[in-house]
């Protein structure tokens, strides 16, 4: 049996500043093993992005119940950067612009932070160049400020670039394909394929099944009102693609 990476039990979470906590996740269970690709589908507002952010430890959200374990460790006592150092990566739906920090410097600082080892500049630069070529990112982007003035598609490719160079154990991809044209989706999809192996896992949120076409999806979860209401194999993707979420709301 393959190694268990993520184990979520009865997770409840809401917006931290709100009095009633506006509970967005209402008792969610999820298990992901090494080597697997999981997909989360669900209508807008069902709690998909919240789940990603809660796993990463975004301060905007507060966990009010349940547990999140990663390789047997309780994630909730860890800060965001500690979670990243354990091997969790989040590809943002709307990546932040950070003026004054170049893509290369940011990636080098990140690499050093997650590996805990000094990064050899020339070797790293070579690696960066190769990964950028793979994702069809112009070489001069290495010297540009992080996401500043990038188009939507460029920001998403920059996320996948980080994924490849940081090589986490669990990649959370939050609508990495949204707003991309067909070719860009192909590039992102092949980047994910290149990343994925038996040692790591992906959790993908998407509204567009095209990104999944060339990935072998192990498990599909349908999220509705903060709960997983339906699970299955990749056949579920086709069903929802055809019928929408309507059939779930009948329950």
């Amino acid at each position, binding site marked *: 049996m393959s190694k268990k990476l993520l184990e979520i039990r009865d997770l409840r979470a809401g917006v*931290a500043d709100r009095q009633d906590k506006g509970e967005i996740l209402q008792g969610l269970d999820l298990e992901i093993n090494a080597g697997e690709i999981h997909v989360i589908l669900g209508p807008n507002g069902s709690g998909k992005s919240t789940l990603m952010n809660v796993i*990463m430890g*975004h*301060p905007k959200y*507060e*966990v009010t119940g349940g547990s999140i374990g990663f390789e047997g460790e309780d994630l*909730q*006592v860890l*800060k*965001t*950067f500690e*979670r*990243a*150092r354990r091997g969790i*990566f*989040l590809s*943002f739906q709307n*990546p*932040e*612009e*950070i*003026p*004054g*920090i170049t893509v290369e410097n*940011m990636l080098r*600082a*990140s690499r050093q*932070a*997650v590996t805990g080892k000094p990064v050899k500049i020339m070797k790293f630069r070579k690696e960066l160049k190769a990964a950028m070529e793979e994702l069809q990112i112009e070489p001069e982007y290495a010297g540009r*400020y992080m996401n500043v003035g990038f188009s939507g598609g460029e920001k998403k490719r920059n996320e996948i670039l*980080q994924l490849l160079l*940081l090589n986490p154990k669990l990649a959370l991809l939050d609508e990495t394909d949204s707003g991309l044209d067909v070719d860009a989706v192909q590039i992102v999809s092949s980047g994910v394929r290149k990343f994925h192996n038996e040692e790591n896992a992906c959790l993908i949120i998407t509204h567009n099944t095209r990104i999944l076409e060339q990935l072998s999806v192990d498990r599909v979860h349908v999220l509705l009102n903060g709960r997983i209401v339906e699970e299955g194999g990749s056949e579920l993707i086709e069903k929802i693609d055809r019928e929408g979420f309507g059939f779930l709301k009948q329950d």
Partner: protein
Amino acid sequence: MENRKKTFVEDIERTLYDIRNEDRSAYKSQAGLTEAVVRDISARKHDPEWMLERRLESLKVYNSLRLPTWGPDLSELNIEEIVTYVQPDAKMAGRWEDVPEDIKSTFDRLGIPEAEKVSLAGVGAQYDSEVVYHSIQDSLIQQGVVYTDMETALREYEPIVKEHFMRLVPPKDHKFAALHGAVWSGGSFVYVPEGVHVDIPLQSYFRLNAAGAGQFEHTLIILEKNSSLHFIEGCSAPKYNVTNLHAGCVELFVGEGARLRYSTIENWSRNMMNLNTKRALVEKDGIIEWVSGSFGSHVSMLYPCSILHGEHARCEFTGVTFASKGQNLDTGASVIHAAPYTSANISTRTISKAGGKATYRSAVKVTPNAHHAKCSVNCESLMLDDISRSDTLPVMDIQGDEADIGHEATIGRISEEAVFYLMSRGISEEEARAMIVRGFVEPIAKELPLEYAVEMNNLINIELEGTMG
């Protein structure tokens, strides 16, 4: 959840700069400013008669002017208590070995000789009011470049000094210009002949040591036609309890087609009143580039002014101001477009933290004859917490035709989403915040000479603790 603390930024590490030597000055003038004091200073400096007259004239102006009614509160300043002139116990030294030991150890800790060894052509370090150490590379002398202290310049290049001294900053300009005119002492003089390019930066390093001593150094730089120079002025003073006053004056004459870069990092101790006046006159096709970093002092009022006097004269101003606890730093720039086709580019970053106040103040004036003037101002402010303050006060007076004037200002805080983004890449919260602040000033840092950029980075490597909230 985890314990949340407010972001809190303590004072930056200043021990390196707060080295204090025992005050063993040979001479101290009487406290307060009287004609006798001014005459005394003049006599000790062996001024020519005209300089004494100008000092006395300035004194009159000084006594007739009030403190400025705008800007930071200066009421803490009691000029009667300021010992205006302190002469250190050392003769002019041409060689490093001859500089007295305690003075030397302070400079050593500030890295001055190392700096010289690396790339600098000459070092004029001002210790209190007198230049104690001075050197210039032979090659510059052979090219006819003059780099000396103001006292020597007054003796050896009297006609040039007489023609230019306080021509750009007349004593009537404001109270502290008048004060400067009356009691000025020390400073640097640079003369670059026509067509000469000084390709290594000249550097001076100012320091104030004695408690209660004002520093009134005068910098006069003259660039003849088609010459170029990079001058670096650095300031750092030890910390004292008595309010210190700095009212220096910088006058820069940029000739036709000449290019001058004037870089400064001011890092005065936190009791300094820094009321410095800097002005440049730029002739046809000339370029003045200011790089200005203000980190220290209790109160600063500093607005380098560029008078674009000839057609196509240009000004580039790049500034960074960092105000922390107990600091009120009022900085900015001023440009006077006084000829057609002149252009200016002003770019500043201000940071405030721990209750500090940073104000960006600028004045752009286009005279009626200066058609097709072009000026763009971009100032960004970052407040690191809820108790600090940033203001932006741009003033524009456009009288020329076809002017192209743009102003862009933003005031903001560190984006918590950006902090989260960096943390999600494994970077600790403190480092994430420091990275964002360094990124914020990066456009300025890249304009600084390397050692200054390093110093600025050290200044910004502030202690940050606590999580987001």
